[in-house]
C-alpha cells in the first residue's frame, strides 16, 4: 500500500516568521507536507538565541523555543540588510506559493518585500501578514508580545482569582491560537487558489483573535455596560467546578460537576454520601451559593488521594474529572503518547526531544511525523544552489561577502 499524499505536497512556503505565531503557522504547514524555507537573518534572530536551551547551554541550534516551532522546515540564512540578500530572497519568493510574515508593520515593505512587490514576482502568491494589532488602525505600528495581547484584548480581565488582579494566560496562548487561525486561512486560500488560480492577501490581528473567545463578555458590555468579573476556576452553571489539591507537591485534580446526579456520584466516591442530603449542596442552585463551604470539604478529601485515583474513580462514576498536568507530565502522558500526539524527532545536536504534534488523527494515525528543526543555515546550498540554480562560484562569493551566512 502506498502512503497517500499529504494535503500540501508540492506547495512551497517562504517563511519570514518571527518568534512564535507565524513560525508555528508555517510549522503546521510543513507537517502537512509543504516545503517550508525559513529565511533567517543573523542580526534579527529571536527564539534561536533565547532560552530554553538544551541543558541550559546557549547556542543557535540548542533552543527549544526555536526547535519546537520550526520542525520539518529548511533554514536559509540571508543578510536582508544587503541588497544582494534581498535579491536572493526575491528569487526564493518567486518560486514559492505562499509567503508568511510577522515583522513589525512596514518592515517587509522597507525591504522591498511587501505584498505589491511580491505579487509582481509571483501573481498568484498567497501572502499572510500577522501583527499584534494588525496592519491597519491607529495601533498598527505598536509591537506586542503575548502579554500585551492578553491585556489589550480583555482576556486578562476575565482571567484571575475572585477579587484579585488580572492574570496572563499560560502557554503564550495568543501566539499559537493566532497561528491556528492563520493555518485555517492559508488552507482555505490554497483551496481557493486550486479552484480559481487566484492568490490573495491575508491579514490577521492577534488582539482580534483573542477577542473571538469573549462573545458573552462583549455582548453583556454592549447591552448594559457590565464588565465581567474574575471568578477563578468557577463556572456560572456547574458546581463544583475547580481544581483541588491532592497528595504530594503541586498536584491538583480538576473536577466539573454538571448536575445533581453527578454530585451524588461525587459524594459517594468521596465516601461522604451525606453531602448529597445536605440542603446547602443537594441542588445546583444551593451549591452555587455555598461554594465557599463546599470546596474546602472536597479538598479535605482529595488532599489524601493521588490525582490519578481521584480521576479514575470519578470517571468510573460518570463525573467529569481530569489531572492538572504540567508540561513534563503532558509529554509523558501515556494516553497522549498512545495516540501519537507526543513525538521525539532526533535533532543532530541536541538529540531526540519530545514535542507535541497533531491534536488529531486521520483514519486512526497521526497525519504525518515531524522532522527535527533545521540547523542555522543548514539548507543554504540546497536552496540557493539546487533550487535557485546559483552556480557554485557565485555561491562562494556570496558566502564570502556575507550575503549568505
Amino acid at each position: 500500500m502506498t502512503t497517500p499524499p499529504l494535503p500540501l505536497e508540492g506547495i512551497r512556503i517562504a517563511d519570514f516568521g518571527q518568534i512564535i505565531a507565524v513560525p508555528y503557522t508555517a510549522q503546521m504547514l510543513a507537517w502537512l507536507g509543504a516545503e517550508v524555507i525559513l529565511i533567517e537573518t543573523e542580526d534579527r534572530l529571536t527564539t534561536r538565541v533565547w532560552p530554553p536551551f538544551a541543558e541550559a547551554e546557549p547556542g543557535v541550534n540548542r533552543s527549544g523555543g526555536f526547535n519546537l516551532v520550526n520542525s520539518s522546515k529548511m533554514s536559509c540564512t540571508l543578510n536582508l540588510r544587503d541588497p544582494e540578500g534581498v535579491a536572493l530572497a526575491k528569487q526564493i519568493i518567486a518560486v514559492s506559493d505562499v509567503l508568511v510574515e510577522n515583522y513589525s508593520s512596514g518592515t517587509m515593505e522597507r525591504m522591498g518585500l511587501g505584498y505589491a512587490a511580491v505579487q509582481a514576482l509571483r501573481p498568484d502568491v498567497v501572502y499572510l501578514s500577522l501583527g499584534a494589532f494588525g496592519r491597519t488602525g491607529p495601533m498598527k505600528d505598536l509591537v506586542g508580545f503575548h502579554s500585551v495581547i492578553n491585556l489589550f484584548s480583555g482576556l486578562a480581565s476575565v482571567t484571575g482569582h475572585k477579587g484579585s488582579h488580572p492574570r496572563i494566560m499560560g502557554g503564550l496562548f495568543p501566539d499559537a491560537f493566532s497561528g491556528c487561525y492563520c493555518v485555517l486561512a492559508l488552507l482555505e486560500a490554497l483551496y481557493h487558489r486550486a479552484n480559481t488560480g487566484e492568490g490573495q492577501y491575508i491579514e490577521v490581528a492577534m488582539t482580534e483573535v483573542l477577542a473571538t473567545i469573549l462573545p458573552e463578555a462583549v455582548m453583556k458590555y454592549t447591552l448594559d455596560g457590565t464588565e465581567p468579573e474574575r471568578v477563578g476556576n468557577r463556572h456560572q452553571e456547574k458546581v463544583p467546578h475547580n481544581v483541588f489539591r491532592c497528595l504530594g507537591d503541586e498536584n491538583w485534580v480538576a473536577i466539573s460537576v454538571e448536575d445533581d446526579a453527578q454530585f451524588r456520584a461525587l459524594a459517594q466516591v468521596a465516601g461522604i454520601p451525606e453531602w448529597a442530603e445536605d440542603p446547602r449542596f443537594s441542588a445546583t442552585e444551593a451549591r452555587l451559593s455555598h461554594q465557599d463551604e463546599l470546596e474546602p470539604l472536597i479538598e479535605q478529601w482529595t488532599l489524601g488521594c493521588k490525582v490519578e485515583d481521584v480521576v479514575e474513580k470519578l470517571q468510573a462514576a460518570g463525573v467529569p474529572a481530569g489531572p492538572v498536568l504540567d508540561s513534563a507530565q503532558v509529554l509523558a502522558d501515556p494516553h497522549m503518547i498512545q495516540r501519537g500526539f507526543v513525538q521525539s524527532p532526533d535533532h543532530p545536536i541536541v538529540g531526540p526531544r519530545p514535542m507535541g504534534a497533531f491534536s488529531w488523527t486521520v483514519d486512526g494515525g497521526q497525519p504525518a511525523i515531524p522532522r527535527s528543526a533545521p540547523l542555522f543555515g543548514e539548507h543554504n546550498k540546497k536552496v540557493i544552489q539546487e533550487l535557485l540554480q546559483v552556480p557554485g562560484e557565485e555561491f562562494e562569493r556570496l558566502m564570502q561577502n556575507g550575503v549568505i551566512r
Partner: protein
Amino acid sequence: MLREGALAGLKVLELTDQVSGQVAGSFCARLLGDAGADVVKVESPQGDHYRKSGPYPGGVPDPDCSGMFLYLNSNKRGVALDIESPGGRAAFQDLVATSDFLVLGQNSSEVQRFGLSRERLSESNPGLIVVTITPFGLTGFNSAYLGDDLIAISSGGMAYATPGIPDRVEDPGREPPLRSNTHMAGYLAGVQGAMASVAALLSRSMTGTGCEIDLSMQEAVAAVMPFELAHASYHEAKPRRPEIFGVMPNTYLPCQDGYVVVMAVMDAHWRNLMVIADNPDWAELEVFSSGVERARNWDALEPLLLEWTMAHTGAEIAQLAQERGIPCFPAYTVGQMVDSAHVIERGFMVDMEGPGGQKFKLPGYPVRLERTPWKFFRPAPKLGEHTSEVLGEWLGYSDAQLSTVGVEAR
C-alpha cells in the same frame, strides 16, 4: 442561497450534543460556514444546550436569542430532527449521504452509540469527511472519559501554566492553576477541527476519498503550548517560575490608576524606557544589560520599575512610551477594548439586534482574506427554522415525507 467564499458549494452537516457545554463542534462548523460552506446544524427537538444559556438581549430567556447560541451558530441553517426516531434517523442518514463534512462534537460514547464512524457511513458517501471532536479523542486509554473546558484546559497543561509568563506566582505549591472564564479549550479545538477539515479537503482533491478526523480537546490545548513544552523538553523547567521568563520586561505592573503593560524586550526599547523613566542610576547596571539578564534578575528589577509606574497613570506612561516606539499602554477591560479607537476603526465588532430592538455587538472574524472575505451571511437559525427548506433542497423530500421525520417543520 448562492454563497461566496473559499468553501462555497460544499455541504457541512453538524451534530453536536452539548450537555457538557463544549463549544468545539459548533464553532468548527461555524468556521466552515464563515468560509462559505453551506452548513446545516441538526438539533434535537429540545434544541441546543446554548439556546438555554444566555446572555439574552432583553434579560428574559429566549431560546432563539441566546448570545452564545447566536455567536456559535451564525452562517448556518437549522434543522430539528429527532434522530432517536426511525423517521428522523433515516432523514439524518440521507443528509449524511449528501454531505461533504459531518462535524460531531460529543462525548465519545455518543459517537459509538449512533454508529457515526466513517467506516459505517462511507459506503453511501466515500468522499465524506467525518470530523469528531471529543474530550480525549476516540482512541487511547482515556477515550471514554467525560470532559469539558475545565478538564481539557487542566489535562492539556494550560491550567498549570497559568498565570503564564511573566506573571509571578509566589508559591507554586499553593497557588492553584487557573483557567480563564471563557470556553477557551472549545474554541481551540473548534479552530483546529476546521484546520483539519480543510486539510482533509485538500487531500480529498487528490485522492477522491474522505477520511475520519479524530480530534482530542486535551491535545488541542497541549498543541498550543510549544514554548512551555520546550522548557520541559529542553531543561526540565516547570512553568510558573521566573526561570522560564526568557527576556524581560514583558509584563504588566500596577500603576496609579490600574495596570500598565511594560514591554521592552529589545535593547533599544529598554534604553528608551530608561530615558522616559528619567535615567535612574540603576539603568546602566550590568545585571540589567540584556533581556536575558533582566529576566534572570527580575526579582531585583521589578520593584525598581514598580516605583516608577506607581508614580504615573497608565495613560501617562503609554503616551511617553509610544512617542519613543515602546509598546506600553494601560491594561484594558473587555469594555475598554470594545470601545478603543483601534477596534472601532478596524470595524471588528459585528452589530446585532435583539427581538425587542436591543442593540449589541459580538466579535467578528479575526482574519481578513482579500479575495474571499468573511461575511456575516445570516444570523443563527431559530429551532427548526430550515427543516423543510433543507430536506427539500438537499434531499428532495416532499411534504408527505416531511411529516414522517418526527418534527413539525416551521
